[in-house]
Every structure is written in C-alpha cells, then in structure tokens.
C-alpha cells in the first residue's frame, strides 16, 4: 500500500469497498462435460478507483465481470455491490440493483433502428423519469461524451468510437455507482481506444464513478487503472497497484504482459558486448524520473556514467523510466554510487560487472 501513496496514485475515496467478491465459482456444463471458468475468485474494488482485470482470452475474466450484475449466475460464492448481496437477488430487486450498475460492451450493443437520442433516453424511461426531464438529461449526457451534434443520428452512421461514447452515455444515464467495462476498447483502433480511455478517466475523476474494467490489452491497464488483478485459468494469480505490477511483476504471466507494453527490456547486443565498466539498469519511478540523478552521481562520486539505453513511459499519470548506464571508476566508488541511487528511490540492477 505504501507504494501507492509514495507515487501519488490516488487512494480510494475513504477506502471503502464498493465491490466485494468472495470465493466465486462458475461452472459451465455442456452435457457431460463441465468447464470451470472461475475457481474461487476473491476481489475487492474500492470506491472511486479504476480497477483492471487483465488476462488472456479464456482466463475467466469475462465470466467474472458478467457475474457482478448477474448476467451470469455464479455457481457459488458471494458478490456484494455497495453492501448489497447481489447473488441473493431476484426479479424486481435484481432489476433495481442493476440500475445502479452501468455496463459497456466490446460490441457496443446499441439499438440499431433507434437514434442516438433514443438509445440514451431508454434507461431513463425504464427508471420512470418523465419525458421532459429525461430529454434534458440526454442533452447533458451527450455533451459529456462529446456527441452533442449526433442526437438524431443512427448508430449505423457512427464510427466505433462514437458508438462506444453513446453506450457510455447510456450506461451513465441513471447515475450508477459502478461502471463495468467488458473489453470496451477491444474492437477499437489504438487512437480511438485512447480517446475512450481518456473519457473513462474523466468520468471517474469528475463523477467519482468506480470503474471495473476487464481487458486483454495491457496498455488499457497502464493508461487508466489504479489497481489491477492478473487472471489465469479461472484464478487471480497476482494483484496490486498498477505501478507495482509494472515495476515488480511477480508471475511469469504478469511479466509477459508488462514486457509487451513497456518495452523495458534491455537490447541483447548491449548485454553480449563486454564493457569496461559496470553495466547497471536503473528504474525510475514517479517524481524522481525528472531528477538530474546522473549528474548528481558524477558530482558526488568519482564515477563516470555513460548512458547506453533509455526508455520513459507513463503508468496512469506516473512517469516511469529505465536507463542502462555503464559506470566506470574505482570499484568502491561505483558501489557507493549504486548505493546512493538506491537511497534516492531508484531500483538498480547490475547487469554486468566490469
């Protein structure tokens, strides 16, 4: 938890739990054959955070998110949303609970024969909101998702990104506490994905809506999530803040996922060559990423630092970077220098001793 505070990633508002999943199992039966999609999943999503569940297809993440509003009925286990035990609800009670949980999908799922306006107004009608009030609310919602001019267009006339914006407006119509995103950007190109992610981030920030997002795209997690769980074979195998996941992935799956997005691997030819000094990989995180750390190092210790490779990226809004440097000088000085870097909050790893 201390990593979160340290790197300025926002804590849950007051830290109260909004979604709590306990020992969730889901078994699908195909005749004789049984497939266990969820094998005892435990998860807590705090109020106000953006929580990501990442995993390859078939890992069970889709079953997991669909259990949260009971589109999928869990075989056993418990799900609480805002203190309410969802798994015990039926009929009208379940429908009322669902009105407090918005959801968007990979394929948008809009009414194709109805206008954008109608698509967004429907949940308001379902909730019993009067025509006039509903119409005003739709205007506000379309403004929020930046589609003011498209109220009378049909979904068929919109791009994928615009369709997802309509779906987001629709999901937000009834002021839900939670927004579930089921692979919401997987059908979109990278640029559109980015604009949808910015919108989700903005919604989270301005409206305080808690977002649970499942995805197989690690860049989605990096871009907007506060915390993340890695799923594999129906179980959560790793969980933590996004910064933790990217800087210190523990499982092989998490390492493979993060590597692909961060591009933080050190080029092979650097390692294969022999160097005069010590080859050190320095990982920067948060505010330190902008400190003139190497200059300070050289000033304080009789050590030369030669940059061989570098890369800077952002994890949510926290800068994150790596540098591979060759340190030359007296061995003791180099050791002291590395110690100094560690004291400054860098993570160091000696790749090659001189």
């Amino acid at each position, binding site marked *: 938890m201390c990593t979160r505070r340290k790197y300025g990633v926002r804590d849950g508002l007051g830290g109260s739990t909004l979604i709590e999943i306990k020992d969730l199992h889901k078994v699908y039966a195909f005749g004789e054959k049984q497939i266990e999609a969820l094998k005892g999943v435990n998860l807590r999503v705090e109020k106000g955070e953006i929580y990501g569940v990442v995993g390859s297809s078939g890992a069970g993440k889709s079953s997991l998110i669909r259990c949260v*509003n009971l*589109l999928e009925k869990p075989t056993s286990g418990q799900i609480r949303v805002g203190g309410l035990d969802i798994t015990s609800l039926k009929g*009208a009670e*379940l*429908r*009322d*609970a*669902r*009105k407090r*949980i*918005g*959801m968007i*999908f990979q*394929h948008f*799922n*809009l*009414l*194709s*024969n*109805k206008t954008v306006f109608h698509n967004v107004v*429907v*949940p308001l*009608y*379902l*909730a019993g909101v009067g025509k006039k009030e509903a119409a005003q609310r739709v205007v506000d919602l379309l403004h929020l998702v930046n589609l003011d001019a498209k109220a009378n267009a*049909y*979904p*068929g006339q919109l791009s994928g990104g615009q369709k997802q914006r309509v*779906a987001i407006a*629709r999901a937000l119509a*009834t002021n839900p506490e939670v927004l*579930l995103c089921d692979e919401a950007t997987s059908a979109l190109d990278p640029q559109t994905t980015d604009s949808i992610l910015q919108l989700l981030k903005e919604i989270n920030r301005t409206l305080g809506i808690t977002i649970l997002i499942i995805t197989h795209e690690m860049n989605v997690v990096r871009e907007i999530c506060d915390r993340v769980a890695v799923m594999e074979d129906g179980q959560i195998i790793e969980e933590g803040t996004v910064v933790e996941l990217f800087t210190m992935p523990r499982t092989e799956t998490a390492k493979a996922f993060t590597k692909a997005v961060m591009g933080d691997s050190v080029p092979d030819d650097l390692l294969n060559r022999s160097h005069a000094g010590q080859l050190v990989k320095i990982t920067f995180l948060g505010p330190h990423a902008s400190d003139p750390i190497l200059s300070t190092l050289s000033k304080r210790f009789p050590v030369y630092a030669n940059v061989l490779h570098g890369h800077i990226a952002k994890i949510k809004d926290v800068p994150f970077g790596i540098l591979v440097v060759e340190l030359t000088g007296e061995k003791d000085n180099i050791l002291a220098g590395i110690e100094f870097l560690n004291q400054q909050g860098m993570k160091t790893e000696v790749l090659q001793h001189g």
Partner: protein
Amino acid sequence: MDNHWAELGSMLLQSLTETATMVSISIVISALVGLPLGIILVITREGHIAENKWVHRLLGALINVLRSIPFIILMVAIVPVTKAIVGTTIGTKAAIVPLVFYAGPYIGRLVESSLMEVDKGVIEAFLAMGASPLQIIWRVLLPESIPSLILGITIATVGLIGASAMAGAIGGGGLGDLAIRYGYQQFETDVMVITVAVLVVLVQGIQTLGNLLASRLRHG
C-alpha cells in the same frame, strides 16, 4: 359486347372487394394471434429472457400440427369452430375463420424467425440496465425487428390472397372463386385471364409496398 364487359367489370369489382375484405380482416386477426405466438416461441427458448422448455415445445408442436394441414382440409375440418364463432359456415365472413387458422401459426413462425435475428448483445445490454422481460419485448425485440416483421406480414398477406382463392369452396367469394367458376368451369377464358392479371397486380403491389416500408424503417 358492352354489356358483357360491364357485367365482367362489376363482377370483378365485387370479387375484388370480397378478396380485400377477407384478406384484410384475416391478416389483422392473424397478426394479432401470430405476434404473441412468435414472441412466446422466442422468449421461451433456452437461454432467452423467459426460458421455458415445456411451453416452447408444446407451442411449437401445436403450430406444426396446424401448419401441416392442407388449407382445403382445414377449411372443412374446422366447420364446427367456424359455426360457433361467426354463426354460419358459408360466405365471406365464414371464410375468415379458417384463413386465420391458416395464417396465424404461419405468422407465428415468421415472427419467431424475425425476433431470432435480434442481436443477443442488445438484449443483454437491456438486462444489464434492469429492464423487465416485457420491457425487453417492447423496447428491444419489436423495434429492432420491425423491418423484418413488416416483410413477414407482407409474405403472409400474399399467402392469404392465395388461400382466400380456395375459400370460394365454402362460398367465400373473391377473385379466386371468380376465376374458377367462370374461367375454369365455364370456359370463359377472358374472365380467367383478367382475374389472374388483377391478382398479379395485387400481389406485386403489396410486395412492393412491404419492401418499401421495410427499407424505410431499417437503419441498421
């Protein structure tokens, strides 16, 4: 000669009116019967919003039985039902009852196939919004399949025009009856040709109208 054409004209007009009456009343009642049948067939399917294996199977079987009876036999077989409903077993009014028994289940199947085309994802989105089964029928299933439903009703209307020709056998009158009685049985070929020509125009007109309406309402 003039007299002959005048007589033919008035006969045609009367037959056309009879056909129009039979078909229009039958199609309205059949649609009112067929629409709920089709909706129930779809929503009781496995995994749909009101899954019910037994209702689905029973209703499906009943529709299949009705649909497998040739119309000419159906007409005779349900004479007691016709008598109970309209009080008579002959005439245009009496023909409407077997026509509904014929077209109702047919429309049921057409509606079923139209509603099956509705994207499951949209239904799911509405479930997630907290919509009730009735709201899903009214807000999703029907609006999303309107163009397809209109085409289905068009097909059923054309089918009814064909079936109504046979209703002449129980004194239902209409264009088919005219063609058979004068054209076929009395060898007045010109009557038969003209009647058939009127039927062709009628069917073409209805189909064109249906297509036009469907494409106007389709936005997907």
